């Protein structure tokens, strides 16, 4: 038939027929992630892969990589595909390696507190399994029921629990990685720390968006399960007061497990969905973990600090509900239908400023949305501001993408930086790292001389026709979109009867 049939035969020979597919249907389903990229985009980037393979282990991956180098085919690793920056979406077609099928827990070591897992396992499953064995995973993404371990490593994530235990970079003991030439390497030592001299290979792969190698095993340090995980919630008049209270709390030695803040607008949107949500200015959710006696003291002091800034503690039931909802912050998508999320890190000292700026961006772009975020560590607040879009309207939906760029701009202004890079935002990398990007280029060339490891991501944005999209051009384009969005009528909630049956949850 065509060329891909040869690929099919060769790959089936390597991993077995039932683990390879090149049907139009399967290829279509591996051409996207959470990002609502319009169909039109698939002309600029060849988002539809030529073939999908589900490797079983590092040896399969190694064979596939050798084959890909020989035949000059791009390889795109894909975990849960729950990121919104197109990290797992092909830019030039090629082989999608569906790592999601490698999801076993290989080793749980209670004596020395570490676990080794395959990268496709999702965080929620790992968290639940370990908790049943009296172990706690330090941090996990707010998309834990969908996100894979390998995916979060590749995006250098911070999330729930990071305030106390750090981001994924703080939690990894070692990685098993398959390089583009098929070599299988181990980056650290599973039993002990990695901080002696010697280039830190583990960190090289954290946040590499799959551009340097395929992660096939992850060893994480784990912690003894806490006696209690206690969620608390505080209601504030507005996000400004909430921000000040968070700032004050993070200047103390109290170390909650997790701190999250949500704009009152978030609850307004939930009410549009017929949920029983309160009418408030802002909410701060603080969750403690550890020994009950120590939590009691921390809880009391925290309540005092919150009260100083006008925060009122909610009931336990409400706080528990908020904790359960930590994975479900994008419900408002139904109202569009569509949702755009802008992820940006800002210095914690500027949390109030950034909140106002984010609200300002939403207002300027005439979008309906909410400012929500978490506190990554005492230095850093992670804003995940979202807005509703309407996917039925191509032009308006495209223009709404400007939100991501505008929020990134604001983050830069307050001394922070935007979150991911992925398919479209590699221009920001140079803004953050300056000449450091050239070093990154050299590392990329050294490890992936044939440029087949998830090409078109992170360090270089190039359309399928080989035309690079320089950062300034992308910025200019995005500014035009923002201008268009401001000229258009304000967003309204498009759907009628959008209430779902499960009311008042």
């Amino acid at each position, binding site marked *: 038939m065509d060329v891909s049939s040869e690929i099919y035969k060769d790959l089936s020979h390597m991993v077995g027929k039932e683990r390879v597919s090149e049907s139009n249907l399967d290829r279509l389903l591996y051409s996207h992630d959470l990002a609502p990229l319009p169909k039109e985009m698939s002309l600029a980037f060849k988002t539809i892969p030529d073939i999908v393979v*589900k490797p079983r282990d590092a040896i399969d991956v190694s064979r596939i990589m050798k084959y890909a180098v020989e035949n000059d085919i791009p390889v795109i690793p894909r975990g849960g595909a729950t990121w919104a920056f197109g990290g797992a979406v092909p830019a030039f077609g090629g082989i999608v390696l569906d790592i999601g099928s490698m999801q076993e827990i290989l080793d749980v070591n209670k004596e020395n507190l570490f676990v080794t897992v395959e990268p496709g396992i999702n965080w929620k499953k790992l968290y639940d399994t370990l908790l049943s064995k009296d172990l706690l995973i330090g941090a996990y993404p707010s998309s834990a029921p969908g996100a894979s371990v390998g995916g979060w490593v590749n995006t250098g994530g911070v999330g729930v629990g990071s305030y106390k235990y750090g981001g994924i970079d703080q939690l990894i003991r070692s990685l098993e990685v398959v390089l583009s030439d098929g070599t299988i390497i181990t980056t650290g030592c599973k039993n002990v720390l990695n901080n002696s001299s010697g280039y830190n290979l583990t960190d090289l792969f954290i946040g590499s968006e799959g551009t340097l190698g395929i992660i096939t095993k992850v060893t994480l340090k784990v912690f003894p399960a806490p006696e209690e995980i206690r969620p608390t919630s505080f209601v504030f008049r507005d996000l400004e007061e909430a921000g000040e209270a968070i700032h004050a709390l993070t200047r103390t030695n109290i170390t909650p497990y997790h701190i999250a803040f949500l704009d009152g607008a978030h609850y307004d949107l939930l009410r549009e969905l017929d949920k029983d949500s309160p009418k408030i200015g802002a909410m701060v959710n603080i969750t403690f973990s550890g020994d009950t006696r120590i939590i009691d003291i921390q809880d009391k002091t925290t309540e005092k600090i919150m009260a100083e800034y006008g925060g009122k503690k909610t009931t336990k039931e409400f706080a528990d509900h908020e904790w359960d909802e930590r*994975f479900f912050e994008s419900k408002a*998508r*139904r109202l569009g239908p569509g949702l755009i999320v802008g992820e940006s890190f800002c210095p914690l000292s500027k949390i109030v400023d950034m909140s106002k700026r984010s609200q300002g961006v939403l207002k300027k772009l005439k979008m309906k949305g909410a400012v929500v975020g978490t506190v990554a560590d005492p230095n850093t607040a992670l804003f995940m501001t979202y807005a509703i879009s309407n996917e039925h309207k191509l032009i308006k939906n495209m223009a709404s993408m400007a939100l991501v760029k505008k929020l990134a701009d604001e983050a830069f202004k307050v001394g922070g930086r935007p979150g991911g890079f992925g398919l479209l935002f590699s221009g920001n990398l140079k803004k953050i790292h300056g000449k450091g990007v050239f070093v990154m280029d050299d590392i990329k060339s050294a490890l992936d001389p044939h440029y087949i490891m998830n090409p078109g991501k992170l360090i270089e944005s190039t359309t399928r026709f080989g035309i690079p999209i320089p950062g300034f051009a992308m910025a200019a384009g995005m500014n035009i979109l923002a201008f268009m969005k401001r000229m258009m009528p304000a967003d309204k909630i498009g759907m009628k009867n959008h209430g*779902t049956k499960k009311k008042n949850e």
Partner: protein
Amino acid sequence: MEQKRKMNETNLIQKEPKPNLVRNKPPHLDDIYACLQCGYCNSVCPIYRETGWESLTPRGKVFLLKHLIGKDSFFDKILGKKITDYLTGRGQISLNEAMTKIYTCTLCSRCETICHVDIDFHEYWEEIRKWMVENGIKPPPNTIDMYNYIANEEYKNPFMEPLPKRDEWYRDDYQLPETADIIYFIGCMTSYHEYQLLLNTLKVFSSSGLDFTTLGTDEMCCGAINTLSGQWDNFKNIAEYNVGQIEKRGATQVVTGCPGCYRAFKKYRKFAKCNFKLLHTTEVIAELIEGEKLKFTKEFKEKNLPIVYHDPCELGRVSDYEGKGIFEAPRYILKNIPGIDNILEFPNNRMDGICCGGGGGLKALNYDLTIDITLRRIDEAIELGANTIVSACPNCKAQIGNGVEMKKEQMIDSEEKFKMKVMDVLDIAAKSL
């Protein structure tokens, strides 16, 4: 053969297929667009756990539907579809392949428990199948056969079993009255394949002194498989027929031990006037125990302890979404059996229960896959240390029973001895009388 050919000719489903899915939009359109593609459903889907393919996950299927009903893109219009297909590498999607993917699902509704945007999946998948069939996309051939056997006066059941066989297990031993307050609607699975369960149920009912009867050979398949496979066009007739038979016997209550029939009867209310109360056998037995009208005396065999209870999806979770889930009645009965002090629970139970594999008509499409799901459930039971898996559904019982046989075959050369009993709550109740 001749007859089969004739049936196919008269089959209403086999209209000339001219699917225009873009124009004839499916129901629950809001849900298709609301889907965030967060993939939370993948993490709980039993099919995904076994196959690992995105196309067999709820998320993938929703994305597929969105694609099938999507209008041409801007470039499709300007450049023409052929050119854009070539440029994007997209290509035509085979509708038969799409059907196979959508039907590769046990309809267990576990995805609904975790859905980010609250899609009512328990209705959604059934409605989508209905929509596909209405648009001329043929369902799996085996389900078409089942549809035809049910419609055939000689069978009235999906298994092509002769009609007179329906009551042959009990007609001589039980002289049931012409009319009664309660109709025990047996269901095809219990009548033809799980007759032990049928006899046990009759034993429990008679010893409790219930005023009951069955429809005998007048019973027709409830039509559950028709609704699950999207072939709704004669469901109204089935509903009217069965309701008519019940009315003829003057019953005020219908009791069934099959969750499939139980749900089908709930659907009857849309098509026929149902002047009777619908109950599951476990509800009736639990009530009898509570009213001290039924007492168990014999001890449960110690060698079969401990037991673990498996929640049938349709009886538990799906019924819960439809108004009232039956989780506690079966457990209550088991607690009242002498010798059973402790009921083990699967890590995922009640609303989070995992399908046995036998639901949604998947057996008719991909039997091997259903057994893979069952084997995983059996492994969970082994890990718990259970010696008996108890359920309250003839389909679960049959499926898990088949799984146990398969497991035994797999372990034939193993040094470990594998033993697992599979029972229905009613089997246990009857044996304890």
